[in-house]
C-alpha cells in the first residue's frame, strides 16, 4: 500500500481527450446505476404495478383475464379458508417470536460473559443452522418427527422411560408445535448473533458506573442492557414478524405439497400459491398478496408505535 499521492508529473492531456475525460467523469454515476435502474423498473416496479391491476381481475392463466372490480377483495373477506390461513400464520408468528426472542437473548447474554471460553466455537454451533434452507429443513424435520425412527420420539422415550409413538405430522393439534420446533431450530442462533452484536456495542462504562453505585445485575439488565439493545430488539421483532407472515416452504414440503391435517398447516402464502399457480387464478392470488402486505404493514406500524409509547413513558 505504498501509494504515491503527489501530483503525477504528466503533461496536460490534449484537449480532445480532455473532453472525453470530463465526460466519463460526469456520466459515470448514471452509467453505474443504469443497469440497476433498468432491472429495478422492469422486474420490480412493473410487476408490483401489474399485481395491483391483476387483483381487480378474475383470471384463468395469464391469457384469460376479466375485470371484476373489487370482487376479489370482497370475496376474500368472506373466504373462510383464507381466514384459517391468517389464523394459522398469525399464531405461528406470535408463538415463534415469544420463544425465539427470549431464548436468543439469553444465549447471547451467556456468550457475552467474560468467563466463557471457546466463544467462537459455540457461536458457530448455534448459528450454522441458519444456513439450512427451508426445503432442506422441511425434509430433515419430516424425518426427525416421524413416529417410528424419528429422533424426537426417541429422545422423548428416554425421558419418559417407554417407547413414544407420537404422530407429529398427522395430528391437527401437533401441526403448530412441529412447525415451531423446526423454525426455532434455525432462528434461535440467528437471533443470538444480532443480540450478541448489540450487547457488544453497549457502552462498558455504564456498567462500571452502575457497579460503583451498587446496582445489582438485575437492575443493570433492566436499566442499561435492555435500553441499549432496544433498537436491535425492535428490529428482531419486525423482521421476525415479516418472515413469519411469509411462511410457506416449511409446511408445504413438510406436508408433501399440502396443508397438513385439517389444513392446520395452511399459511397465507401457501393459499396464494394454491390459487395463483395450482388453480391459475392470478387475480385472486394478487389480491391475497396485497392483503398480506396490508397486514404486515399494520403489524409493523403497531409494533413501532407501541415501542415508541413505552419509550416515552
Amino acid at each position, binding site marked *: 500500500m505504498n501509494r504515491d499521492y503527489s501530483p*503525477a508529473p504528466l503533461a496536460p492531456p490534449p484537449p480532445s481527450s480532455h473532453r472525453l475525460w470530463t465526460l*466519463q467523469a460526469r456520466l459515470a*454515476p448514471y452509467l453505474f*446505476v443504469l*443497469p*440497476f*435502474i433498468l*432491472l*429495478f423498473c422492469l*422486474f*420490480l*416496479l*412493473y410487476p408490483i404495478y*401489474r*399485481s395491483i391491476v*391483476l*387483483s381487480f381481475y378474475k383470471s384463468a392463466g*395469464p391469457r384469460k383475464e376479466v375485470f371484476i372490480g373489487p370482487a376479489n377483495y370482497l370475496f376474500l373477506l368472506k373466504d373462510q379458508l383464507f381466514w384459517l390461513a391468517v389464523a394459522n400464520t398469525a399464531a405461528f408468528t406470535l408463538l415463534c417470536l415469544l420463544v425465539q426472542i427470549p431464548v436468543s437473548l439469553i444465549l447471547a447474554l*451467556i456468550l457475552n460473559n467474560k*468467563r*466463557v*471460553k471457546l466463544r467462537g466455537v459455540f457461536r*458457530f*454451533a*448455534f*448459528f450454522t443452522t441458519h*444456513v*439450512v*434452507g*427451508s*426445503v*432442506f429443513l*422441511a*425434509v430433515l424435520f419430516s*424425518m*426427525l418427527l416421524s413416529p417410528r*425412527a424419528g*429422533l424426537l420420539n426417541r429422545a422423548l422415550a428416554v425421558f419418559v422411560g417407554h417407547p413414544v409413538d407420537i404422530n407429529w405430522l398427522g395430528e391437527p393439534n401437533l401441526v403448530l408445535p412441529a412447525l415451531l420446533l423446526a423454525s426455532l*431450530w434455525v432462528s434461535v*442462533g440467528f437471533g443470538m*448473533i*444480532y443480540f450478541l*452484536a*448489540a450487547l457488544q456495542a453497549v457502552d462498558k462504562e455504564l456498567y462500571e458506573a452502575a457497579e460503583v453505585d451498587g446496582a445489582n445485575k438485575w437492575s443493570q439488565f433492566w436499566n442499561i442492557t435492555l435500553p441499549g439493545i432496544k*433498537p436491535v430488539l425492535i*428490529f428482531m421483532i419486525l423482521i421476525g414478524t415479516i418472515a413469519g407472515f*411469509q411462511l410457506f*416452504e416449511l409446511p*408445504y*414440503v413438510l406436508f*408433501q*405439497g399440502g396443508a397438513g391435517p385439517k389444513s392446520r398447516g395452511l399459511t397465507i*402464502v401457501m393459499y*396464494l400459491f394454491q390459487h395463483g*399457480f395450482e388453480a391459475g387464478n*392470478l387475480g385472486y392470488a*394478487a389480491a391475497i*398478496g396485497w392483503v398480506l*402486505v396490508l397486514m404486515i404493514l399494520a403489524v*409493523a406500524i403497531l409494533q413501532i408505535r407501541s415501542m415508541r409509547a413505552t419509550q416515552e413513558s
Partner: protein
Amino acid sequence: MHDPSGLTSRSTPSDTAKSIALHFALLIGATLALTPFFWLICATLKSGEDLFTFTFLPWHDLSRLTTSNFKSLFQQQPFALWMFNSLFLAATQTTLVVTLSSLGGFALAKYQFKGKKLLMLLMLATMLLPGQVLLTGGYELMYNFGWINSYASILVPGAVSVFGMFLFRQAMQTVPDELLQAGRVDGCSELRLWWEIALPIVRPMIGAFTLMSFLASWNSFLWPQIMLQDEIKYNLPMGLANMIQLPEYRQEYGILMAGTLLGIIPVVILFFILQKDFIAGLTSGAVKG
C-alpha cells in the same frame, strides 16, 4: 453481588460455580443445535432396517454402514444434474448481483446525480413489500417474455437487489474521498476507482453479501417452482421437494437424508470460510442504525 474491594472477584468458589453453570447451559444449547446434523449424517449411512433399529449408529458393528443411499440417490434421480444446476444458478446469480449492487452502491454513496433522491425513495418503498407480492405480476411478465421454463426467468430478475444496493451504499461511505481524488489525479477513470480503490476497502461486505446471495439462491424454491417445468432444469430444493412427494420414497429415509445432506454441506462449508465477514455484514446495519 457487588464486591467493594474489586480485587477478590477473580476466582471465588461461587465464580467457578457460575462459570461451570454457564458452560453447561451453552453445552446443552450446542447439543440441541448440532444433534440434528449428527442424526442426519448417521441416517445417510444406514440401510433400510438399521434406520428403524438404531437411533444413531450401530456402534457394535460399524461394518453395517453403507453408502448405498448415495448410490441409489444418484442412480434413481438426476440428482447430480440438480446439484450442478443449483451450483450454476447460485454462482451466476451471485456474481451478477454482487457486481451490480457494488457498482450501484458506489454511485449512491460517492456521487451526486439527478434523480438520486427519487430512486432511493422508490427503493425504500419496495423494500417494505414482501416478495410474494411480485409473484403474480412477475409470472405474467415472464409469460409475456416467453421466459417460463428458462433460466433467464431466474437469473435476470435475480440480478437486482435493493437490499444489496443499500448494504453497499453504507459500506462505500467509508471509502475516503481524498483517496478517490488522489486516484483521479493519478489518471484513474471512475470505473477504475470503483474496481481498484473502493472494492478492496469494502472487501468484508463483498464476502458477506456474496454468502447471503449464494445462500438465498441455493436455497430458493418458490420462484423456481413456479418458473421451471422440466425435471432436468430443477434446482436441488425443487428436486428434493418433488422426491418427498413421490410414494416410492415414503419409507426411503436414507435416500432423502442423503439428498438433504448434500444440499446442506456446500453452504455450511462456504459459511465456515466466510463466517466473520458474514456476521459483520449481517449485523452492521442493525446495530449502527
